[in-house]
């Protein structure tokens, strides 16, 4: 019989003597997430400084700028969404999202995930007889993606939270993408609050001409892309807001990149 008990002791004694690499190459870097209060405080302070700088010091000369010591920036190689692990800078591989039932694929960054919007937050617009009906049962599918952790994510309104990606599939109801773009959000009184500007344009994404709307106020932008696909209208929408701290590493470029990854099948 093989002496298993003694073998276990020998394994432990001998293998435990194998040298470990330096801790700096394998201990995951601890990155403490700033609290919401701290984040708001920092954002507020930054805004105040920016406003004061813009209002009170309008004539910053080139010489003065040149004399300012260069700021020390963190290493560009390990900024979010990358993180340090084993002393290496790691980025999770992007995830392919396939929705064959509604004919599209998307690629989202590796640290993103899908979330379920709470009941009662279905998008709708009331009283628009000339445009498409933006109520059930014409909303066929809706998926929202976020870079936030479950602890950080919450949604209460019709729109997905700022810096998330809202992907909606609607029954097109024989309306064109331009008509959809007009119906929501450009002419929607629920969205047009005060001094907003709605810009409609067209873009070509992967050979498709896409209607694009951008509703902008001082503090936020809602950007929507309308993909006309047979009897369906695919809408990708996100809100960028100065009032909401984006998740680490998420910018408008991140969101635009997700939209441009789309493939219609």
């Amino acid at each position: 019989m093989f002496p298993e008990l003694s073998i276990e002791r020998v394994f432990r004694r001998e293998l435990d003597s194998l040298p470990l690499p330096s801790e700096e190459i394998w201990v995951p870097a601890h990155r403490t997430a700033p609290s919401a209060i701290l984040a708001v405080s920092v954002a507020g302070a930054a805004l105040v400084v920016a406003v004061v700088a813009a209002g009170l010091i309008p004539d910053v000369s080139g010489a003065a700028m040149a004399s300012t010591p260069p700021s020390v920036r963190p290493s560009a190689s390990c900024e979010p969404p990358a993180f340090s692990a084993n002393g290496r800078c790691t980025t999770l591989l992007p995830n392919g999202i396939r929705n064959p039932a509604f004919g599209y694929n998307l690629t989202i960054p590796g640290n993103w995930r899908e979330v379920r919007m709470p009941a009662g937050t279905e998008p709708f617009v009331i009283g628009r007889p000339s445009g498409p009906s933006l109520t059930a049962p014409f909303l066929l599918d809706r998926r929202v993606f976020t870079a936030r952790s479950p602890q950080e994510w919450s949604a209460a309104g019709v729109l997905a939270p700022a810096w998330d990606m809202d992907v909606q599939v609607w029954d097109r109801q024989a309306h064109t993408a331009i008509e959809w773009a007009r119906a929501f959000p450009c002419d929607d009184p629920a969205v047009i609050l005060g001094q907003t500007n709605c810009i409609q344009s067209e873009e070509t994404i992967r050979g498709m001409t896409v209607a694009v709307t951008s509703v902008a106020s001082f503090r936020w932008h809602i950007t929507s892309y309308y993909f006309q696909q047979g009897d369906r209208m695919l809408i990708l929408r996100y809100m960028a807001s100065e009032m909401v701290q984006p998740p680490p590493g998420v910018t408008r470029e991140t969101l635009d990149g997700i939209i441009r990854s789309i493939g219609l099948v």
Partner: protein
Amino acid sequence: MTRERWAELYRLEFPRIYRALLAVLRDRDRALDALHDAFVAGLRHPPAHDADLAGWLFVVAVRSTRRFRRLPLLPLEWVTGTSGDDEIEAALDRMEVGRLLAGLTERQRAMVVAQFYLGLDHREIARQFGVKTGTVSATLAQAKARMRAEVRNVS
């Protein structure tokens, strides 16, 4: 499980799993890369229970080495200032355990190390490796027979 909790558990388990992987792979870069892959996999889909962590990390790491062999991102010597895998090979060859394991296949080594070093029983090994308990028993029996033969040859 939060990322912070996962990183903490990973840090606690790293020494044991890393050494187990060295015994199986006999290559520091492969062991580090494999463990790194397991860490990243755990960030995405952490194991259901903390108690399973060692076996889970070990098996995910071993599997990742079978999928593909990644080129190291950074030569280990740049960080540690020591030589490469010759040192590990030599250390293992000096060990009784290292010599015994050298005669086994990588799969046999993985199961032997899981049992004798990580302390997993046959059922846990089967569950982590995704095979039947009988397969684990047969693999371990073959491995032990080889190791016994090696001991007889040496003596």
